[in-house]
């Protein structure tokens, strides 16, 4: 399968009084048709900025640039062309289902809006499609739901409506920005299962953005780990979880509590130190201020290692088993 989305050297710069904040620092990746790419990283690592940049939804103060930004042979840097793709072949769902729907309009209206705009056709056809999609995401008596307002729905139902809304135009790529973070645990599991089922049934590609590595292991085909606006490691889920190469990835995986393995009462794992300031350039490795293996070479240019399938950015080519256990 060829790449559906190709991103080369994506940058997001935000002008602040203290200087230019580089939220995304030259990100290069691709998404193949039908696969799930998880972008993981802690708060402020630029994962949400990346998704907003792809959708051209960045706040006005943020500037986007990229060497390549291609979606199915369309250049997304061309805003006129991108407008026909956005909300049509490329859809997005957000973190906060409670506020992402407009309180002033019934959900039927909001569901059919993008469909009518991109696909045209009659209102009746759009409503029929909306009923079909609500049914697909597991909402009971969908026809009656069309007349309801968002405040009449629970958080889980609203996220289902958001997913149905994104699927209305039969997109090839769905960007999900922390779609389960705001939901309680049981609903989280349901929504996650729903997304996985839909992905398999419809064969759409998904970019799933999360800080929760536990979720990643359940849905990802490929994983990209981000730190301080840059990619530190990328590979298949098996490579990332089975043989992580970058010290940051290793530390993150160490931090996941596991039933049966993590002893009761022990403190949860943390990575010591704080994320470096994103204002200005960072010379060398972005993680070196918190890396237990940091040394002199880390301060100058750090090469990207590995083959196409599994890439990581580190001075060390070999895995670092010594790190195990040091973060507890």
């Amino acid at each position: 399968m060829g790449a559906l989305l190709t991103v080369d050297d994506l940058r997001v710069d935000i002008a602040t009084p203290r200087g230019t904040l580089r939220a995304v620092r030259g990100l290069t990746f691709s998404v193949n048709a039908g696969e799930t790419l998880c972008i993981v990283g802690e708060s402020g690592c630029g994962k949400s900025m990346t998704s907003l940049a792809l959708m051209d939804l960045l706040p006005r103060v943020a500037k986007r640039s990229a060497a390549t930004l291609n979606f199915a042979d369309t250049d997304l840097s061309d805003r006129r062309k991108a407008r026909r793709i956005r909300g049509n072949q490329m859809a997005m769902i957000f973190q906060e289902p409670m506020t992402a729907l407009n309180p002033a309009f019934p959900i039927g209206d909001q569901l059919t809006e993008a469909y009518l705009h991109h696909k045209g056709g009659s209102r009746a056809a759009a409503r029929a499609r909306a009923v079909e999609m609500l049914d697909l995401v597991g909402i009971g008596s969908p026809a009656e739901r069309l007349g309801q307002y968002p405040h009449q729905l629970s958080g889980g139902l609203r996220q289902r409506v958001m997913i149905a809304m994104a699927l209305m135009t039969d997109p090839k790529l769905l960007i999900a920005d922390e779609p389960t973070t705001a939901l309680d645990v049981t609903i989280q599991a349901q929504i996650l299962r729903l997304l996985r089922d839909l992905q398999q049934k419809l064969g759409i590609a998904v970019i799933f953005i999360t800080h929760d590595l536990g979720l990643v292991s359940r849905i990802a085909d490929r994983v990209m780990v981000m730190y301080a606006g840059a990619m530190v490691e990328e590979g298949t889920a098996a490579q990332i979880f089975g043989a992580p190469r970058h010290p940051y990835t290793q530390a993150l995986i160490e931090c996941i509590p596991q039933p049966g393995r993590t002893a009761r009462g022990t403190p949860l794992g943390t990575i010591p130190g704080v994320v470096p300031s994103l204002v200005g350039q960072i010379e060398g490795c972005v993680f070196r201020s918190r890396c237990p293996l940091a040394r002199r070479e880390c301060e100058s240019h750090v090469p990207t290692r590995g083959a196409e399938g599994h890439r990581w950015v580190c001075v060390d080519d070999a895995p670092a088993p010594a790190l195990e256990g040091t973060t507890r």
Partner: protein
Amino acid sequence: MLIYILKRLGLAVLVALCVSVLAFALLRVQGNAASALAGEGASAEDIAIIIRTHGLDRPVVVQYLTWLANVLQGDLGTSYFFKRPVAELIVSKIGNTVILAIMSLAIALTLAVPLGVLAAVYSGSWIDRICSGISLLGQALPSFFLALCLVMLFAIHLRLLPASGAQTWQHFILPAVTLGYYITPPFMRLVRAGMIDALSNDYVRTARAKGIPSHKVVLKHALRNALVPVVGLVTVQLGLLIGGSVVIESIFALDGLGYLAYQSIGYRDFPVLQAVVLLLSLVYVVLTLLSDVVNAWLDPRLRVS
């Protein structure tokens, strides 16, 4: 909720009673009512007759209660100048005032909503400053001054519109524009603030993510939510317009309540003045009560206090 409404109602009745006492006193404090009624050059016998027929020799409290009972039955007395029942006079004038109020409000909204939306969408830019400037000018410019400027331009120089009277709809245009522009600023500020708030909401981002064109995102998704508080301001401003158009109605000799009040001051026509004051105060009392009830309905937290 019911207790809250009853409390507010009780308060409103008290305020109305106070207003009625003040309105009643208005007729008594202006000196000798009987000699005012009789007019200049009346004889002592004439005045004595008037005192007796109008019950002016009875205690003030009795006079007040009699007057109040009459008012409650719709009898507001007889105009000294027009020689007609005051109630009839008011009914014949109130139509013009209401038309003027509604036209002004319509003009204010057609000005304020686009200006507020533009200012919010381009907030902080020169477009915002121009829009805010236009509205600020409306607040800073005395309405009588604007009225005179408009009369000079459209009535005297261009001869497009009549300068005074209330015979045709054209007579309403200049006064309505003056009043409408005068009340634009509060609406504009409210629309601007509401839009800035609405545009920062997640549902606006959702609408953009769907690929909906910007103008539709702004005018449909954001504006609909920003207009909710504007509806509240409409009721307040409507009361202000019905009561506060004395100056404008006088300048344009537009035959409404305000003009009637102005005339009655000039002719010392106290029964009319009394009735207008009473009526306008009651409009306020009723509108305040109404907005209290609507607010309580909108915001449950208000019902407790």
